[in-house]
């Protein structure tokens, strides 16, 4: 048995969820190889070779891989896939877009978004927005698996010295062209990995009012999240959405403000360690998952919350 993990990176740095996926992959089998496909991405391969769980790094470098397109990545992965029993990657928009294309060409029924490795062919995964957990066993010879990154700790990044070998590029797919990526730059922690997340919902009433959330996020060094309703209403950009079809977060502290708690939002945050809900509707479903619920008008509660936080002289960062 051996596992091939597809790394996500921006040609300079490894994206953090790759490290969580490495942890899960090494639970499937210790013989873990990582495939880095990129353009001038030697630095990425170097840093992955230092991850202790990684036994080998396969590096494919070509200018056609400057931008990540699954149509281009897939043939390169298929060329490597033969010697592996498992092909895995993280279940974020990168892996969700890529892995099924690989799986179909390998004639494998993919197992998406696993939260636990039970054995090399058996996994636990949430279905119905996390309202049920399914234990599933793959009967395919080759298994394609995507990993919910927040369900596994990130692998340590130093101490290893895996061999890096180069491999050839595959033929370019000419029918899809990358145009641009608009990334929202922020100094805040990333939503997916932040220790504290504070999210706003429809109750915020406007994008302008999110400044109340921002002020607390600044104070707590928290990431800012949102419900789908808030994103749909245009209060905040889509990269903040937490939920079944947005991001799944598992912070130490999740603060839901003006969020009623629709099933699809709960799917993205109910595994958080401590959940706080601030909502003026005492019957809102969000209170059913909250460790601490405060029934209050958020426009009074948030400024007061900030004031109380300012009184504390020590806040963990």
């Amino acid at each position, binding site marked *: 048995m051996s596992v091939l993990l597809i790394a996500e990176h921006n040609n300079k740095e490894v994206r953090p969820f790759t490290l969580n996926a490495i942890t899960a992959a090494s639970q499937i089998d210790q013989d873990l190889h990582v495939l880095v496909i990129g353009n001038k991405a030697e630095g990425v391969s170097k840093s992955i070779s230092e991850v202790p769980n990684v036994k080998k790094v396969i590096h494919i470098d070509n200018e056609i891989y400057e931008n990540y397109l699954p149509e281009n990545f897939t043939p390169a992965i298929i060329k490597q896939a033969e010697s592996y029993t498992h092909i895995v990657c993280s279940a974020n928009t990168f892996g969700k877009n890529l892995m099924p294309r690989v799986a179909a060409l390998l004639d494998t029924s993919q197992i998406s978004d696993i939260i636990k490795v039970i054995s090399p062919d058996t996994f636990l995964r949430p279905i119905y927005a996390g309202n049920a957990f399914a234990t599933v066993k793959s009967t395919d010879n080759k298994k394609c698996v995507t990993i919910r990154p927040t369900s596994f700790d990130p692998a340590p990044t130093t101490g290893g010295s895996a061999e890096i070998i180069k491999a050839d590029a595959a033929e370019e797919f000419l029918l899809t062209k990358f145009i641009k990526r608009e990334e929202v730059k922020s100094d805040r922690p990333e939503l997916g990995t932040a220790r504290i997340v504070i999210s706003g919902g429809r109750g915020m009433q406007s994008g302008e009012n999110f400044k109340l959330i921002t002020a607390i996020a600044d104070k707590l060094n928290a990431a800012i999240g949102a419900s789908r309703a808030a994103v749909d209403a245009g209060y905040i950009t*889509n990269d903040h959405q937490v939920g079944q079809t947005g991001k799944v977060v598992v912070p130490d*502290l999740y603060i839901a403000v003006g969020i009623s708690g629709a099933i699809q939002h709960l799917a993205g945050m109910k595994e958080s360690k401590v959940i706080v809900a601030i909502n003026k509707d005492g019957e809102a479903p969000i209170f059913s998952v909250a460790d601490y619920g405060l029934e209050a008008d958020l426009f009074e509660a948030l400024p007061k919350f900030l004031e109380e936080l300012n009184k504390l002289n020590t806040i963990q960062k």
Partner: protein
Amino acid sequence: MKILVAVKRVIDYNVQVRVKEDGSGVVTENVKMSTNPPDDNAIEESVKIKESGKAKEVVAVTVGEEKAQETVRKALAVGADRGIHVKTEGIVEPLAVSKILQKIVEKEKPDLVFMGKQAIDDDCNQTGQMLAALLKWPQATFASKIEVKEKSLEVTREVDEGLETIETNIPAIVTCDLRLNEPRYASLPNIMKAKKKSLEQINASDLGVDIKPRIEQIKVEEPPKRKSGIKVKSVEELVQKLKNEAKVI
């Protein structure tokens, strides 16, 4: 131009799903079923493209048991021209659905195939990408904006970092995000008219594809319950609890 739009019948998104006591699955008897929400966006976009004059025909297709054709009827009621129901029994995995859809694409020869980015029952998020792979077509997943040009599509995609724009040749597969558009409701007259539109039934077994499940479902269980929390009376109390009891700030 011809558009094929694939739809799936799922437990309605507002239903609180219950796990069966014997661990074999979730309760579907006497539960409200609906079209998978992002599939509604896929139908809406197809119909809008047709209304703009850029497409001539919208064909809705579903794969599933007898009742799955309700979702096709709904698509017909909001503007699809005709429907196809591929009949199957039991669990059909995304790989099998994509193989079935490949056969339908070969027969119908659409220029574009639309569907939702993910079904809210199995949460797999695979079928569109798999179909694109089998057809060797471009894939534009998680689309929140689509511009149809003469021989290409410009698609804005929602990704973790923000937004990404790609251009694909036609034919292409597009999987739709919930923010792509606002699906319309079917009016009563249109629901009546939809009953007269053609809905072809095909048995999956006649398509000559292997759709046997490859994944054994060992058990389905309730997720661990959170221990119930408390209501605090004031912001001061909340901050004290977070500091001294939960120790998270």
